[in-house]
């Protein structure tokens, strides 16, 4: 079932200069779509058109079969989770209040908000004792987890993420990626995920969409993009890095051990 559909969508910020050029594509329920591409190619713009944070200049966008203009903006946004790189946690609210914010603005009682916060904080792998702390008392990686938990609070079927793990170190990012992949498999939400990181895009996406200059260069599975690039641009973009990302880590590890063994024997 199609849940998000772009139909000949264009966007320009200045007259005559389209940053999104006549894009048509569909996302099915439960897909994990990663959007990659060079800086400035229009990933954020495309993402933000889904929750009406940016309005298209031409074309139609349909969410759950209904055109975006027929959706009440607040209703639509409350049904879509949103996570950004800077997280944007509310500094004057505790973690519980942050996570429960969507429930608060939709009128849920405090007890319900708190129990939801407790449930979600465990889901994103943090100890329950963090619930009454303030965002400033958390590390970057912990904040990202809260950002994810907050996006899940309203039980949205769509989650939009704009480089959500961009600001944390390599090790924390890997951990976040693994855990988030599991969360996706467990909850079956539709996720649109913008990233700069080729490895992240290939690892997380059930479908990878490569953008360039306001158009989609290629959309497909990891092996499609790496082994069957549709253009020289796609091949250059993923290149050897994409190939490496697809190699099985266990096999690589065995090769590596073997290499060491051989080196030791020849000494």
């Amino acid at each position, binding site marked *: 079932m199609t849940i998000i559909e772009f139909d000949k969508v264009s966007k320009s910020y200045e007259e005559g200069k389209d940053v999104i050029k006549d894009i048509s594509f569909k996302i099915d329920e439960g897909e994990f779509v990663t959007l990659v591409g060079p800086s400035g190619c229009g990933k954020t713009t495309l993402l933000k058109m889904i*929750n009406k*944070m940016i309005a298209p200049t031409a074309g139609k966008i349909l969410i759950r079969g209904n055109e975006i203009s027929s959706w009440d903006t*607040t*209703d*639509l*946004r*409350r*049904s*879509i989770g*949103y996570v*950004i790189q*800077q*997280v*944007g*946690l*509310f*500094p*004057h609210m505790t973690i519980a209040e942050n996570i429960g*914010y*969507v429930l*608060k*603005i*939709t009128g849920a009682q405090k007890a319900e908000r708190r129990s939801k916060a407790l449930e979600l904080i465990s889901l994103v792998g943090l100890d329950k004792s963090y619930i009454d702390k*303030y965002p*400033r008392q958390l590390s970057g990686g912990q904040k990202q987890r809260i950002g994810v938990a*907050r996006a899940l609070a*309203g039980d949205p079927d769509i989650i*939009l993420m704009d480089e959500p793990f961009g600001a944390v170190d390599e090790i924390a990012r890997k951990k976040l990626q693994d855990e988030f992949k599991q969360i996706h498999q467990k909850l079956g939400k539709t996720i649109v995920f913008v990233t700069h990181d080729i490895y992240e895009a290939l690892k997380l996406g059930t479908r990878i969409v490569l953008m360039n200059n306001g158009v989609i260069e290629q959309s497909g599975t990891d092996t499609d993009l790496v082994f069957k690039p549709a253009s020289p641009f796609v091949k250059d973009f993923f290149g050897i890095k994409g190939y490496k990302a697809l190699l099985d880590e266990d096999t690589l590890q065995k090769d590596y051990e073997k290499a060491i063994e051989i080196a030791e024997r020849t000494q």
Partner: protein
Amino acid sequence: MKITSVFDLYIQRTEFFTKLLIEHIYLTSVSVLIITIVGLTTGILMSSNKKMASIVLTLTGFLYTIPSIALFGFLVALTGIGNTSAIIALSLYGVLPVIRNTYVGITEVDAEIIESATAMGSTPLQLLLNIQLPLASPVIIAGFRTMVIMTIALGGIASFIGAGGLGVAIWRGITTNFPEMTVAGSLLVAMFAIIADVVLGFVEKGFSSKILGKE
């Protein structure tokens, strides 16, 4: 003039000074109330309307180039002598710090925080009440504090246009060449301002430690 004679004056004329102090508190409170309502509303409206913001900031900036005595004189011609003119003048003068700090406080909330709250489906009113005003509150209260001190001090010259308050004692001291009276009035104005400042200082600290987490 001896300082002890000022205290003698307080003892001899307790009733007179009490009455003036109460009048002063009344004048100041009414002005503060008007300023707070007008200032907050204007500041909030400005924060979502750039054009209005630049107009209001220009207008209030211009207001401050008018000497207070000239403004008092102008108001006397319009609304006559008495408390009304004084309250209008005090309100006009005091409103700028509240408008400016409300406006600045709201517009300086991090863009990512506003973006998150908006994308999560906050209505503009929910955004204002849950996010913008709480986060702007330390700045707004700082402006409020400045305004209260200013209004208390300026209230001292309100009696030049026939209003009550401690200015009456100051004015009388000047016109009857009775310096103890002038000092007695001024001293009470200063005390009032200092007490208000200290109390509001605590309030301000309380808010910023809640919002920004400084102990």
